[in-house]
């Protein structure tokens, strides 16, 4: 069993009045405004020269009190709020919430809605990973992949816009299914997009995977073992890159994932390079899922029979999905009224960020930026 004392992430911030040339240890602040940290994240580093002795993350700059707001909105009204947490993968957030409420109401979305949900969620996973790739590469110094991935992500956002009118915070799903029917030409657009993007993913790999400098910057950087991942509650590609083949889409399938054939890519070393490879493979697997789904969307209604006023019975539910960043869970407590009694969001980025200290100890300062990038955190989700 892991020794918990090695996970202490707080620092003794005592000796700050000595000049930095006197003592060997230096406390440096990577302030909330910084080009590298994805959002407003403050990391206080304790350094010995270039080596990191410990870190402390100060978060909460983007805290908006979403959980408190949820107690004062009806279930339907709260749906758009959910997109704004992990704003990069808004569709996944919506999927998790809608499915959680549906479970609480003991209804099931019809098959057609499930297929549409799967297609949009996998497109969203692709978009999220593309953004991750661009920003991660930018932090490490490769300035070009950012523009390529954003260009290709535009195509996905165009599909979202045609479907529900919004590119980023989509509010695509409703409790009980989908509100919007797929537009005319949806399948053609998606199929054309799949053909368009497959060689692009190969292009990104060509730029980075065997690039000597990329390999040196990412191999053996930000190392974490599988046991530490499980003990720290880290999920998602980080866990898979450490060797644990676990994906909620296969372990506890939801929304039509049972019907698709896809692999779970895993890594062996648990370092940044493996996480990069795992996410690239996940992009390809997403393409595979979409390819299978788009051909055979079943006919039928897109919305289950759900009352206009959503009033689940008294009770609680915890439902989690495999968001692009990890296990995104919703714990909803209902008191029988139209407004939830408590909505707790279990954000993957929040829990993954705890692992930063563990991953960065003993490495150099330039690696801190790489590790924050590889954890793929979105501060909207960390702070809610």
């Amino acid at each position, binding site marked *: 069993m892991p020794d918990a004392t090695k996970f202490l992430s707080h620092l003794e911030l005592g000796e700050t009045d000595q000049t930095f040339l006197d003592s060997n240890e230096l406390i440096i602040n990577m302030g909330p405004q910084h*080009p590298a940290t994805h959002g407003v994240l403050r990391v206080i580093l304790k350094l010995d020269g*270039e080596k990191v002795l410990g870190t402390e993350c100060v978060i909460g700059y983007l805290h908006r009190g979403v959980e408190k707001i949820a107690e004062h909105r009806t279930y339907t009204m709260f749906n758009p709020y959910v997109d704004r947490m992990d704003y990069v993968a808004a569709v996944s957030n919506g999927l998790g919430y809608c499915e959680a409420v549906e479970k609480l109401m003991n209804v099931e979305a019809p098959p057609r809605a499930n297929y549409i949900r799967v297609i949009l969620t996998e497109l969203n996973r692709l978009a999220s990973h593309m953004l991750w790739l661009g920003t991660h590469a930018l932090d490490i110094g490769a300035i070009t992949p950012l523009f390529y991935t954003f260009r290709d992500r535009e195509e996905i956002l165009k599909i979202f816009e045609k479907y529900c009118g919004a590119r980023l915070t989509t509010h695509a799903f409703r409790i009980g299914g989908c509100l919007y029917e797929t537009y005319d030409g949806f399948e053609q657009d998606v199929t054309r997009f799949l053909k368009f993007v497959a060689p692009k993913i190969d292009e990104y790999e060509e730029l980075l995977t065997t690039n000597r400098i990329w390999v040196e910057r990412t191999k053996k950087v930000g190392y974490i073992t599988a046991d530490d991942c499980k003990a720290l509650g880290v999920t998602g590609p980080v866990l898979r890159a450490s060797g644990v083949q676990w994906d909620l889409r296969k372990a506890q399938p939801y929304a039509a994932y049972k019907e698709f054939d896809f692999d779970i890519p895993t890594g062996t070393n648990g370092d940044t390079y493996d996480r990069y490879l795992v996410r690239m493979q996940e992009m390809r697997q997403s393409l595979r899922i979409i390819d299978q789904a788009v051909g055979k969307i079943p006919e039928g209604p897109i919305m289950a029979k759900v009352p206009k006023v959503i009033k689940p019975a008294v009770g609680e539910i915890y439902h989690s999905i495999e968001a692009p960043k990890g296990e995104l869970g919703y714990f909803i407590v209902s008191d029988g009224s139209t407004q939830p009694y408590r909505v707790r969001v279990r954000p993957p980025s929040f829990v993954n960020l705890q692992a930063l200290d563990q991953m960065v100890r003993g490495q150099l*300062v330039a690696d801190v930026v790489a590790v924050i990038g590889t954890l793929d955190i979105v501060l909207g989700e960390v702070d809610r």
Partner: protein
Amino acid sequence: MLDYINSYLSDTVHVTPGEAGNFFWALVYIIAIFAGLSVAVIAMNWLERKILAHMQIRLGPMRVGPHGLLQPVADAIKLLLKEDILPSEADPLVFWLAPLIVVWTAFTVFIVVPFGPTHAVTDMNIGVLFMLGVSSLSVLGVVTAGWASNSHYPLIGALRSSAQMVSYEIAMGLAVISAVLMSSLNAEGTGTLSMIGLVQAQEAQQTWFIFKFFPLGLIAFFVFAVAMVAETNRAPFDLPEAESELTAGFHTEYSGFRWSLFFLAEYSAMIAVSSIAVTLWLGGWLRPFPHALTGETWDLVFSLFPGITFMFLAAITFYSVARMPKHPYFRVQTIGLAGFGAVLALIGLALFAPPVRDRIQDVYWFVVKVAGFMYLYIWYRGTFPRYRFDQLMKVGWKVLLPIGLGVLILTAVSGIVF
């Protein structure tokens, strides 16, 4: 003085103005180099932004002047008009001095750079050594810049920059010695450190040193090419000035005109080390195949290249003019671009004239080769991620240095054996 000009124009002069003691003509050359460098830096700025943008599937500056051609002018004006901030804790004299040192060293090296057999300000018999030595002095400017700012991040950045530059100079030096050794493979057995002498040695040995003792010349060239990128703090070795790293560069505290001096010095240094590379390995001002393809017709063909280049650039410009949108908003830009194209075409036509085209050959080939290096610099910046500092030092000391030594020894051995 007039004698010199006459003798120059009648092609009977065989030495550079500095060697001939002709102060006035040397001054003309200095001013010409200064002007040429300034134009080159401005052009580099525009080219870098446009080429990098096109590599990143975007357009780059398009609005300031047609296709952003006036962007560097706008940048220069902005920098000149910016507030000159002097940090309160900074040492004012040293703060003022640091950019000057860097610019001075970057410009001084050009007095030995040969654009032709007599087209240099002067030709010292220790030309290459002089260039390497003076460009090393820029490290002093970097350190003083970091120190004078009196704040941790620039100081750490400056120390890193200077460590990087010093480490890679060793590798550069070893590669240079290999080339100098190759220049000694003539009948007298004497090599030369003089820049003009090195090109003449390549001419005499009828091979560019990059192809000499294949692959040794190539490896030496490669070592120098990598070291020169690190020397000038450019990607992928630009950790000290990267934005997303913790320690910002040594020029953090500088703003406005002072910052533009650093930037000017960086580009000049890039051109300077590229000139060394071109002179030592790529045959300097020699046209391709001066001995293999000889004769009147070949001479004529190669002498048409400068004119053709400018006509080609003019053609591209006119094509862009044709593609400009027809909206009245773009009228001024279209006219400007057409005017620019006309100027390029006129220069091209002028370069076809026989008296000009015989004399412009050397300068043209030299500039083309250096321009190729500039493109490589921009290409590296768009493609490679950044090296971490310890990896950067490792490459300098543990990879390039042994390879440089190896090439040196093998070159010496090959020189004796062959």
